[in-house]
């Protein structure tokens, strides 16, 4: 599965490249070539690297390993059809990784990026409600059992449409240049990534590639069921393009508004979960 891992990482970076290209075309700019993000990772990987004097050394370097490690684990869980709960647990823990990235350097820009990432964690945690809704419908949170349920009852996309919307917002808040990407907004230079350069940044890019693939593939697995590989790839590209449209036409929200909107969505999801809970369970 090592080959799949590397392919998934490269494919994720390619998706991020497509994301940038589509946004650029919508905004009538030429935009970078689609493989730009792969080149980016390669470029950072051969820069001379050291650790800033003010940084907390072990954390500064260790967090890069953790970042790649957790998404490798998530990739394994997804490929073997493990628990959806684990994947979303890792998704939440990515917030802590961002927090650590930002704080470990001592730079004020990084610090504010990290703090913002924790702020938005508060409003994303309850998106677990949509995971619970899936559990209520299918009776399990194992990916294999969910896809098996869908093979019998049809895709969850139609059955649990509000959960699709909520999960789509989760994806959107992880895409760069989106309305909820307050952690990377430009007044913070590069947010939590500001001080991680060279090989550290390349490691982060690897993590981003894996993360994009895992999240998009999980979304498709959960809501559309098990698809052939080709359809899976096409689906992920289409999903990316739709996310790019959403990112391109919406301005970045202020941190306060971003958290408010996510909290509102959470509240709506709670109501929906309540309805499902009383309706589906006898």
């Amino acid at each position, binding site marked *: 599965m090592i080959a799949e891992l590397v392919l998934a990482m490269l494919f994720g970076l390619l998706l991020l490249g497509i994301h940038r290209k589509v946004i650029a075309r919508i905004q009538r700019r030429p935009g970078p070539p689609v493989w730009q993000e792969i080149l980016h990772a390669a470029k950072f990987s051969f820069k001379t690297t050291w650790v800033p004097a*003010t940084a*907390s050394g*072990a954390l500064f370097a260790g967090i890069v390993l953790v970042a790649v490690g957790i998404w490798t684990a998530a990739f394994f869980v997804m490929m073997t059809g493990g628990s959806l709960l684990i994947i979303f647990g890792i998704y939440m*823990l990515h917030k802590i990784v961002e927090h650590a990235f930002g704080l470990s*350097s001592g730079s004020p820009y990084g610090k504010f990026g990290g703090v913002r990432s*924790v702020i938005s964690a508060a409003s994303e945690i309850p998106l677990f409600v949509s995971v619970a809704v899936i559990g209520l419908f299918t009776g399990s949170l194992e990916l294999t059992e969910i896809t098996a349920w869908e093979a019998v009852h049809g895709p969850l996309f139609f059955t649990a449409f509000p959960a699709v919307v909520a999960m789509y917002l989760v994806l959107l808040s992880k895409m760069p240049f989106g309305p909820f990407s307050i952690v990377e907004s430009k007044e913070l230079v590069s947010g939590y990534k500001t001080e991680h350069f060279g090989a550290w940044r390349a490691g982060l890019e690897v993590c981003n590639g894996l993360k994009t693939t895992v999240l998009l593939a999980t979304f498709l697995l959960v809501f559309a069921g098990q698809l052939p590989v080709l359809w899976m790839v096409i689906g992920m590209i289409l999903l990316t393009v739709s996310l790019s449209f959403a990112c391109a036409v919406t301005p970045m929200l202020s941190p306060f508004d971003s958290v408010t909107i996510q909290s509102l969505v959470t509240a709506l999801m709670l109501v929906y979960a309540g309805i499902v809970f009383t309706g589906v369970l006898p």
Partner: protein
Amino acid sequence: MGSLGGIPLYVLEFGDELVYFSPYTITLFLLALTFTLLAIVSRPERQVDVAFGGDAYTTKIISVDEMRFRRFMAIACGLASMGAMVTGDVFNFTLFTAMVGITNVGIVAAVKSPHVQDAAYQYGLVALSATVPLFGAAALYAAATGSLSMIELAKGTLPAVPLVAKALLVIGVVGEGMAPFYAAKAEMFRAPGAPYVIMCSLSSLLIFLRVAEVVMIG
């Protein structure tokens, strides 16, 4: 819904204190372990402050005494969250959660900044009041089902856990592990000493992830 976090791989019964590792709990446990190790080996960073209106900047240095205390608290916090991740007993879970609350306060309380101290105190008040719903929930679990063991609850043979107990449990965890919820207001995260401050947010998130599993059992 028996196998939410996957099938338990290993159950350690020690009297009625039981510990179990399922793929979900083991993942969370390992993450707590990793970050605890990072907190042990890293030295705190020197936070850079830019002086307003000029090119000058200053770095904050944490004294060795303060660092030792906060590192100890961070390790205690890591141990408490590791315990909360693998315990198979609802009451133990609430105890570990309460301990995470105390250590979270401890991690930032040593910072000699009035803002941080005030934030820590206010957070501590909330954490303390959150023990009421927490322990109340555990007692209701025991009263309604006659068992506190998650393995027993997951079998589905016991009476259902009342929704009130689950709601109280979640409210308690939100109160204890408020660190991320409180971030918008808190000066807590501005405190220097990244490896330790991160334990605050990590432990809160971890107990939240675990409670998501706990409330879905039984």
